[in-house]
């Protein structure tokens, strides 16, 4: 197990270097004059230009620039945005909002997805099963870019149940609607997977054994059917985190949440290389670590899985 984790961590280092390099290259390689892009129409004085060029090593070869950047990253210095703000500050503003949003979305998706999937799986062919099937098809078919404004219009503007935008310091309540929207697709897939998994497991031999022991119906479902059905669902959570991060860009834009998504969007629009690369680097780490955790959790849930 320890050897497996070490190997995975080493792989993560390689993946991390690779992805940051690609993003770095994409952001910086095709800019002819980032300083001018930053300044917009105003002329940049030679003095300032020299200072900034020095600061960003702009006259060094590309690989050396990347080397400097990684060096900073490893020492905890994420650099500054082109507007001069320390990227570390931007992150500590943005990340808490996004983490709250993503965790809330994941919480809703898990809660609703697994509960509904369990009920549908136990009562296949029932009205509940068919209704949720139709609903999940609709939700999966609607891209978040459509779903988010609709939800905002219906629940925010028309019904007034939730604030339409989250504002600069979003409250947990203000994040509920965005989280529901963001987690909708995950809820749907999680429900379908749970349903399929439960439907398969209720017919398993060991469930028959559990019933033969005379256990209560509730215990048979909770301890045997559900427990075993969750194994594939856990893996989905790891995959879903990627979807959630992508969805966060749109959701944060629509609901005006000052999170990672909106900062990233801003960075791309203003061609703010250091900002984009910084955020993407952290995203990559989050993604890699989550996937490792999910894999380890998988082994905990299913003792037949051994990592060597």
């Amino acid at each position, binding site marked *: 197990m320890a050897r497996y984790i070490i190997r995975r961590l080493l792989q993560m280092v390689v993946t991390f270097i690779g992805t940051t390099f690609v993003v770095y290259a994409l952001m910086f390689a095709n800019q002819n004059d980032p300083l001018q892009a930053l300044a917009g129409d105003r002329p940049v004085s030679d003095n300032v230009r020299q200072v900034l060029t020095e600061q960003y090593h702009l006259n060094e070869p590309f690989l050396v620039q990347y080397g400097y950047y990684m060096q900073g990253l490893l020492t905890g210095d994420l650099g500054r945005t082109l507007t001069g703000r320390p990227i570390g500050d931007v992150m500590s503003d943005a990340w808490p909002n996004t983490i709250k949003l993503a965790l809330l979305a994941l919480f809703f998706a898990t809660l609703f997805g697994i509960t509904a999937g369990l009920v549908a799986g136990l009562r296949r062919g029932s009205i509940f099963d068919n209704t949720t099937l139709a609903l999940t098809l609709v939700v999966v078919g609607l891209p978040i870019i459509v779903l988010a404004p609709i939800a905002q219009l219906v629940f925010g503007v028309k019904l007034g149940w939730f604030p339409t935008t989250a504002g600069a310091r979003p409250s947990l309540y203000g994040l509920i609607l965005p989280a529901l929207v963001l987690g909708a697709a995950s809820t749907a897939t999680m429900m379908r997977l749970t349903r399929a998994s439960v439907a398969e497991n209720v017919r398993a*031999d060991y469930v*028959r054994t559990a019933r*033969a*022991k*005379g*256990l209560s119906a509730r*215990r048979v479902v909770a301890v045997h059917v559900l427990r075993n059905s969750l194994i594939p669902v856990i893996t989905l959570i790891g995959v879903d985190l990627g979807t959630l991060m992508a969805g966060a860009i749109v959701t944060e834009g629509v609901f005006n949440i000052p999170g990672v998504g909106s900062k990233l969007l801003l960075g791309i629009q203003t061609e703010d290389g250091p900002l984009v690369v910084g955020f993407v680097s952290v995203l990559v780490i989050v993604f890699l670590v989550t996937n490792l955790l999910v894999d380890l959790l998988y082994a905990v849930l299913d003792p037949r899985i051994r990592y060597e």
Partner: protein
Amino acid sequence: MTYQYPSHGQGQGYGQGSGQGQSYGHGYPDSPTAPVVAGWNDDRTGWDTPTAAWSTPPTRARVERPRSGEHLLDVRDLWIEFATRDGVARVVNGVSFHVDPGETLAILGESGSGKSVTAQAVLGILDTPPAVVRSGQALFSGEDLLTMTPERRRQVRGQEIAMVFQDALSALNPVYPVGWQITEALRSRRGVSKAEARRRAVEMMDLVQIPAAAQRIDDYPHQFSGGMRQRVMIAMALAMRPKVLIADEPTTALDVTVQAQIMDLLATLRAELEMALILITHDLGVVADVADRITVMYAGRVVEHADVHTLYGAPAHPYTRGLLASVPRLERRGQGLHSISGTPPNPVAIPAGCAFHPRCPYAQQMCRMTEPTLLRIGRLDRASACHFPPEALDARHA
């Protein structure tokens, strides 16, 4: 979820005053007979030490002692069918059998003859639908399992009647340690503490002769060999000390030497614990040494039942004769093996008359028209469902 079990110290008959208006078949309404609680204050002690654990107050349901002339488990005229796409599959058609404590009954029949369905119906784990129990009784200590309340039935299940399944690998939950699974019912139904449960798990694993039980208690099913896994299944079934153990093809998935070991173990435990053992199998060779009586099933019917010596020495029904002829035997070495031609009937379209007639070498015109009934032959408790008595068959064959 907790359930209130009737306390057993008050001489209060089960079902009395339950207001359910249920008949328990043989209704002994207010009989003040001493309640029998299997495994504790009854006369079947001695298979393990009466430690504090075993003397924890039993919460199992009370069961009346069978009255004389009654069997411990008495299945009468059981009819079960399945609604399938092709029509109604009549899978069990009027099956009857019985067992008593300390006795081994083998139920024998080809694949698809309805053995497992019968057993599952008795235990109450048959999925209804698709299955429908049309009629019949399954009297356990005089109480009909098929008409009792689901809650009462759940109490009997596992505690009074337990089952061992064929494929232990799939019948055990892959994600829980074996010790945990063995004592799950004890913990959840009897409130045995965790530490106590561990001790009991080791005890049970010792009982079924799993080497180094104390070290293996936290292992998972996939870490055991097939034979050891089947022992775990048996330990699990016996953890509640049932009075009836139904073993549904417990050795089919195992290789021959291990088969014999498991059969020996079952026979030993049956004797030690004075259980009634129902051994379901399609292999006559397997049960010869352990069974007391054999019930032969064909197409969901009992075609013959007899004690094991009579059945082997003088099989009455042509189907049994065919089965016997297909068992390799030393004294007939060199004669080649005989096997019954044809295949068992589809339960959706069972042949009219005698269900066995398309495959029966003795079949006559009347076999195609009328169905033979199970008739007693000579001695008590031996019967065959054939139009022709064994002597007539012998004469025709000669």
